[in-house]
């Protein structure tokens, strides 16, 4: 798993495919109804949640099964503020308050767990429990958080008195997603990202080279929490409705499945898996949905056992294999080039 250089090389098949995907997403509102644009917008917010989990799980090796808690926290705080505290500018809610709130939660939880070196399966189980706690607490506060019925009628984002249309919200969500992707790509391509992979590969070894791995884990977990918070916040403004399952463990694990199938530790796999699977989910009838969920679970199991880098990994290996056989003769050692995903 060589790291690609962070500089974008637009000539590799992987980069071309990503660019084509991006163009398709940009053009999408021209071809679908406004209602569908909103649905696709929510896909993009869940893709952002998937990116944030991939940073923690795929790169740093910390499997979080509770990240929906921070997504949901961002969604709830946004719903409350947009509905009841109009004095706070919407942009500030989405880009400052929601991420700050979620980051505070991850910072606190991260400190609580990492200072006792809770990792591996215990980290997975404790984060899962946190998600369950959040969900049940939100379900109980009927007056303040709407209980099991949640909060309806969250307004769209207003910028200086002007309400964003569904299409504008879509482009905003897409912009945030692409921006976050590019940012994370730079991050994981830097020496900082190498330390994260070091923690994933061998935490103790990394510690004994002099890296304060607790600090690194805390930074990454907090950053990821902030991203999940923005994602949840955008979701609330787009869907207009927040409820306890947004905080829950089922959503958390679902996203983990999307990432695994797409390809963990590749960033693009998280985005690809999240969008593809949500889209397929929506196209299936009620009769088929159980068979589909079952098939997806079987695919997930297969990927976990045999293809840890998911579909993106398989595709990139295939393309790389074809490329190598095509020009193996005249290709010298070009360093870390040729890697499709990052």
């Amino acid at each position, binding site marked *: *798993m*060589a*790291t690609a*250089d*962070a*500089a974008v090389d637009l000539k590799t098949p992987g980069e071309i495919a990503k660019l084509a995907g991006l163009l398709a997403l940009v053009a999408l509102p021209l071809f679908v109804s406004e209602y569908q644009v909103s649905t696709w917008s929510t896909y993009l917010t869940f893709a952002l949640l998937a990116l944030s989990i991939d940073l923690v799980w795929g790169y740093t090796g910390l499997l979080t099964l509770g990240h929906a808690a921070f997504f949901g926290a961002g969604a709830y705080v946004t719903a409350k503020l947009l509905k009841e505290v109009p004095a706070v500018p919407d942009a500030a809610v989405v880009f400052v308050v929601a991420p700050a709130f979620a980051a505070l939660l991850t910072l606190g939880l991260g400190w609580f767990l990492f200072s006792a070196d809770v990792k591996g399966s215990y980290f997975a189980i404790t984060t899962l429990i946190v998600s369950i706690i959040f969900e049940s607490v939100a379900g109980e506060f009927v007056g303040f958080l709407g209980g099991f019925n949640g909060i309806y009628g969250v307004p769209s984002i207003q910028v200086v008195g002007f309400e964003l249309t569904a299409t504008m919200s879509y482009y905003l969500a897409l912009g945030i997603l692409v921006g976050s992707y590019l940012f994370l790509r*730079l*991050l994981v*391509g*830097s*020496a*900082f990202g*190498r*330390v994260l*992979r*070091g923690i994933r*590969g*061998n935490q*103790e*070894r*990394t*510690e*004994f*080279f*002099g*890296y*304060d*791995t607790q*600090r*690194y884990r805390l*930074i990454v977990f907090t950053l990821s929490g902030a991203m999940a918070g923005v994602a949840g916040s955008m979701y609330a403004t787009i869907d207009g409705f927040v409820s306890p399952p947004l905080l829950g463990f089922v959503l958390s694990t679902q996203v983990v499945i999307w990432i695994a199938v797409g390809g963990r530790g590749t960033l693009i796999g998280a985005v690809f898996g999240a969008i593809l699977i949500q889209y397929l989910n929506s196209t299936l009838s009620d009769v088929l949905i159980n068979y589909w969920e079952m098939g997806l679970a079987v695919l997930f199991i297969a990927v976990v056992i045999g293809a840890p880098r998911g579909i993106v990994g398989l595709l990139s290996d295939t393309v790389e294999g074809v490329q190598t056989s095509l020009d193996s003769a005249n290709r010298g*050692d070009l*360093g*870390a080039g040729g890697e499709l995903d990052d």
Partner: protein
Amino acid sequence: MTDTEPLLRAEGLTKRFGEFTAVDDVDFTVQPNETKALIGPNGAGKTTFQNLLTGKLSATEGTITFDGEDVTHVSPHERAQRGIIRKYQITSVYEDETVLENMRLAFRSRASSPWELLRTHDDSDIRDRIEELLSIANLHDEQHTTVGTLSHGEKQWLEIVMAVGAEPELLLLDEPTSGISVGETDDTVDLIEEIRSKENVAIVVIEHDMDFIRKVSESITVLDRGEIIASGTIDEIENDETVQRIYLGEAADA
């Protein structure tokens, strides 16, 4: 040699696990640029002692002074930052990464803050240094090889040069020849000789193999049941009756 301030001084170092005393009142010093060997039968407390020096375990009693400062209660990563770097007995490298990525990770470890690491490219002096060390370890042509596919000996050498790349003042090598072939052992000797001649570093080698120790070190400390029972030159140790008894005894047991 003894008139300078030692690089490392352990005084009365003791580690107990419940009733069991793994390291018992050990005094141990290492001078700058000195190479010392630590030997002892299985279960003598060598690994525990090393874990106390690196901070993996905290001492029950006693103090550790490094570079004139008390580091007894300093965290492992902080000790590594100050220059105590270890190579594990069981090779501990990043199997999924390339040789080059492994080296780069070790090289940036003295950066004082995570924020210094938000750069994608290494300076040319770091690249030159990585090339130099990989050449010493005969791994220059394997830069883009995934480490998991290297031979056991190659992984050992990689971990040694990674440790050197982390700019140690004290390098702890835990059984650098364990599990590798005779030919590879000779290469390991050459590697350590090369490091001793080129680098400003004190080395403590923990080993079983006396032939190996004879080649890389002049001074030996013998540990048995958590206590230092002898120290001196190779010849002194080999003629020491207590040491002979312990090693013959172990041979008889085996």
